[in-house]
């Protein structure tokens, strides 16, 4: 009898493997945690989109919970995402934009057309800040706490459901920390 049970071992191993691989089928390879979670927002020094003379650095993100959204005029999903960002700004969330690999004229035109939920926009034409943030496409969104530590990261389009399910709760969570 004992020997018979031993014969079931391969079947059991197969079942474990099958469950494991089946789960893999529904996993999204782009859903991976940012390498920057729980780390300080990278240092930078760049001009703002609004004023080429005014430079800002990472101290911009000190003092209160901020949602940093990386966008560009060339990015169609960023346009679809704007209503959700405007909604968050309406609720009192502080938003800072990073205009990524864009030109000033196009970036300004984008904000004129789709609205501007951002307190300020960091102008990053070379994508250098984006690179240090590990951004590999736009839109990407980072939640930074009052101490300038990255606490949450969202890759890609923020749907209205994402706002309710993750973004807004995360903002509130880190505000109360």
């Amino acid at each position, binding site marked *: 009898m004992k020997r018979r049970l031993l014969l079931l071992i391969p079947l059991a191993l197969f079942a474990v493997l099958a469950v494991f691989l089946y789960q893999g089928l529904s996993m999204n390879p782009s859903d*991976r945690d940012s390498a920057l979670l729980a780390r300080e927002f990278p240092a930078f020094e760049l001009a703002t989109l609004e004023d080429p003379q005014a430079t800002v650095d990472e101290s911009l993100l000190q003092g209160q919970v901020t949602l940093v959204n990386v966008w560009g005029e060339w990015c169609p999903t960023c346009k679809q995402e704007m209503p959700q960002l405007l909604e968050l700004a309406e609720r009192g969330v502080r938003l800072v934009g990073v205009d990524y690999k864009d030109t000033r004229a196009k970036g300004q035109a984008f904000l004129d057309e789709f609205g501007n939920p951002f307190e300020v926009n960091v102008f990053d034409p070379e994508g250098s800040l984006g*690179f240090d943030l590990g951004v590999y*496409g736009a839109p990407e969104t980072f939640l930074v706490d009052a101490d300038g530590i990255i606490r949450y990261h969202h890759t890609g389009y923020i749907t209205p459901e994402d706002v309710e399910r993750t973004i807004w709760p995360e903002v509130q969570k880190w505000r109360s920390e």
Partner: protein
Amino acid sequence: MAKRMTSRKLLSAALIALAMIVAGVATAAIEVRQFDDPVLQQRYESLVDSLRCPKCANQAIGDSNSPIAEDMRERVAQLLEDGRSDREIQDFMIDRFGDYVLYNPRLNDRTWLLWGLPAALVLLGAVVIALIVRARRNASNRALSDEERQRLDALINRERTR
């Protein structure tokens, strides 16, 4: 007949030419970076082959046209010229894009299972084989008891008398 042969040859020549053009276009699309120092050149080539493009499905940054792969290649070249080691350059990329970026992930608390499992399975297999071999050897070495011998003789006799 001869005519048919030539048209076939023509066709295959045309196909080969087409394939060469397509291959040429495919390789020409990614700009090749040249270093004066052949050692740097070699290190650059192996680095861009060992770093995975975060945007694309399973392509090295050396094989991809995506903007982020271009930026990463550019950064690899800069860091090489700054005299950084391969390890430092990999660390630089991991800091920004995570462990994902290495095709050959390093051994750490998240990857020990990945690296350890094959070795553990080989060991397990060796143990199983050793047990089977031992059991077989024991079985063949064991002498028959008197009772078993009698039964065997009886069976052989029965077969013979049939």
